[in-house]
């Protein structure tokens, strides 16, 4: 039996009919055509599906879609400006070589954003903890950690 839910998706109020067994990831990909969040494992182990729900980074593959009724959901598609200007975290990933195959990248960026939204000047340890649940097979994480540090500095500079 499908139920109707209402939530805020990347700043816009939306509604959807969802089946109880569908995850937030299925909802985003199949009903909203938002393919940025990826399914790397489907069981919450890899973080490729990370999105932000009410300020917290979550694995969209684990969260039942019904749970986002009334919530604010942010996905990778909501970060860049309509004119193509990247969010400072995205720009830092581009500039500092933090992207290789790119499959983990959207989830990685969303975990970084959830961190920096709460903690604008994290230590390296805090950065590594924030992305611990986001597996990356290509980069060895170093350039990702450096990009997040760089983004934190840039974001602070703009405030």
């Amino acid at each position, binding site marked *: 039996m499908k139920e109707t839910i209402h939530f805020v998706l990347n700043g816009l109020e939306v509604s959807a009919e969802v089946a109880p067994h569908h995850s937030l990831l299925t909802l985003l990909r199949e009903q909203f055509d938002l*393919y940025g969040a990826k399914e790397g494992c489907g069981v919450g182990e*890899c973080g490729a599906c990370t999105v932000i729900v009410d300020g917290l980074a979550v694995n969209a593959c684990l969260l039942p879609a019904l749970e986002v009724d009334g919530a604010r959901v942010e996905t990778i598609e909501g970060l860049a400006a309509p004119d193509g200007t990247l969010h400072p975290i995205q720009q830092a990933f581009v500039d500092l070589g933090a992207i290789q195959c*790119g*499959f983990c990248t959207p989830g990685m960026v969303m975990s970084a954003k959830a961190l920096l939204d709460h903690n604008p000047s994290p230590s390296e340890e805090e950065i*590594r903890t924030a992305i611990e649940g986001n597996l990356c*097979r*290509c980069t060895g*994480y170093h350039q990702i950690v450096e990009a997040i540090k760089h983004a934190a500095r840039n974001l602070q500079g703009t405030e």
Partner: protein
Amino acid sequence: MAELNYVGKRIPRCDAQAKVTGRAVYINDRKRPGMLYGAILYSPHPHARIRHIDVSKARALPGVRAVITGEDIPDIPLGFMKDNRPLKKGKVRSVRDEVAAVAAIDPDIAAEALELIEVDYEPLPGVFTPEEALAPDAPLIHEVDPKGRPRKDNRLPLVWELKCGDLEEGKARSRYTIRERFSTTFVSHCCLGTSGVIAEFDLEHNLTMYSVTQIPFLAQNDYRAALEALGLKDRRVRVVCQTIGGGFGSKLDTHCYEFIAILLAFATGKPVKIQFSREEEFRAQPTRQPTLTEIAMGCDAEGRLTFREVRMLLDNGAYTSWGATTPSVMMVPISSLYRVPHVYYRAELAYTNNLYSQAFRGYGNPQATFAVESAMDLLAAEAGWDPVEFRLHNANQPNEVTPQKFHITSCGLKECIERVRDGLGWEEHQRRKATGDNRRGSKVRGMGLASLIHVGGGARVYRSDGHGMMMKLDDFGKLSVFTGAVEIGQGTISTLRQVVAECVGLRLEDVHIVFHDTDLCPWDVGTHASRQAFISCNAALACGRKLREKILERAAEQLGVPAEELELKESRIYPRSKPEESVPLAKVLRRAHFAPRGTILMAEAFYDPPNQMLDKELKGNLSCAWAFGCHGVEVEVDTETGQVRILNYQAAHDVGTALNPMFLEGQIYGAAVMGTGYALTEELVLKEGQILNGNFTDYKLLTAKDVVPVTPIIVETHDPAGPYGAKGIGEPGCVPSAPAIANAIYDAVGVRLRDLPMTPERLLKALREKEKQAA
């Protein structure tokens, strides 16, 4: 060298924006109109006879469009030895064996249909180690060979044997000799993007494969063979690669699931997608080869290496992929890492009821180097040498020919070793160690290093090592470059763009690379062997030179200035003596297009490097440039828990020239962490052929919290054959990690770990045994 605008610069990747905004389209994100979802039923048994399969209930399920088994399909022999087929018939030989497949209108129905398929198996005794497999009374895994002839045993009819010099003479000249056994195990590529494909026929039965292959042009050939088996002669096959979520060698074979998608698409007349789950990725994507290695090595009284003798037994699993040819690369460090005059190598492969294995970053080199470089430390100790000095003493040098007839041109091995030594603080550590100052309670520090040699200038694995390229200019000075290279994350497309802009004389933003489509792009043999930057950028130099000449000829006519006096730079053309009189390239192009008797400005080139296939004795200059490197680590071993922490990781690579230092460092960071995982944590655990940890909770990939403090050191030797002097870097970075760490552990606590991964359990066990012996 003239000032370069783009080569050597830290320019971001051209696909970075698409990837960082979630716009890049992976196979996971791809749909086609009317597409059906395919799903595969695997064997629950590692070895069993299939008595009967009943698919009637699955066929009757609403929404199911096709159910096929091994009995329903023509014979499509797959793999390097053609001993595999898309769906197994009569017998299953491992738990990854495909038994039946369905196509349905949605993935849930496809999954439900699989559950309705009833298979009656008669389990058979299995063999789960290569030694068991070769025992005289071992059950046969394949009763007949691909030609139908009865088989006597589980040995593959593929023996790799290399003899250089005179082994006995080498032994006779040895003052010091060591002999040791090492083993490596199953590890999985763990590409974050799981495998997938969409097979689609048009009404004339031409086939399009939306694919993630690293070998689009060789895959075309395999798919054509499958079509012929279906009675479809001489059809067009187009391979369109999607954005690829990691490769690492896992896409160098065509795989059963791709052919199952073709069969389902043929049966239904609809596009069919097969998208692996993570569990399937662990189960059905072949692994790295497990090896058992016996090595002996000697040196004379002066510390010069005298011989190296290596015998290996490889677990082939139940079927044979190109992975069975990895001994051809295992030979590279065995014969040619350091100067060793007398070499013997023999590798045999045995069928087992385990998962089969395939290419994986380094193509056997990490397994071989683990044995060679662990043995180097053993021999140095035996002969009373410092491990660094021993390596420097025997290091390869520029312009020498190795016993396997590799012609080494550029070689920065010595510099790599010296810079790693300095980066680690080797001498300071020796002083601390001498006074016991490397020990704090249960925690003991140690240092170790290991070097590498790998192909760096292509590898003539097939008869061709070639790469085709085309270039065409539009009315506005925008260049389209058509390449057969595959972008698996390494950055090859972005590097190519830099090189093209540089060599043609265009602004970077005027260069657009067209790739991943066999209908558009010229032939290339594949993205493997760390060859793509070397080969495709050399093709770009050849093609770019031709195009530039054509442009300047046209400009000379238009401007009335001899072509040899004209310069093309940053998309503007000008007489060298009068840069202020420059005209935009676009203007010259429009005039060329619109003039009476106009012309089009295009160019093509085929670059096939001057390297050699290994001859009958398995000798020859496989690669026309050789990559070298050295990794050194400082570890802290906790003797109470067996935990190993890496405090310092120095990774020096002789790369010829850094085309883009940022990408290069990315390759080194990523590979060193992958190599560290191989050394310490990663193992796909098989018990009696069953996978015990096919998920990311139990298969231990390193996370961001497992800090490996890698310092990349780029050594530039400017190889004469390399594009702007560059050599390959894709694979080398994961080759020496395991022996470097093993040597550091030995340096710290005096136990030699011979089996990968070097888990805390294994380390503790070895420490306890050592204590027992001391007592």
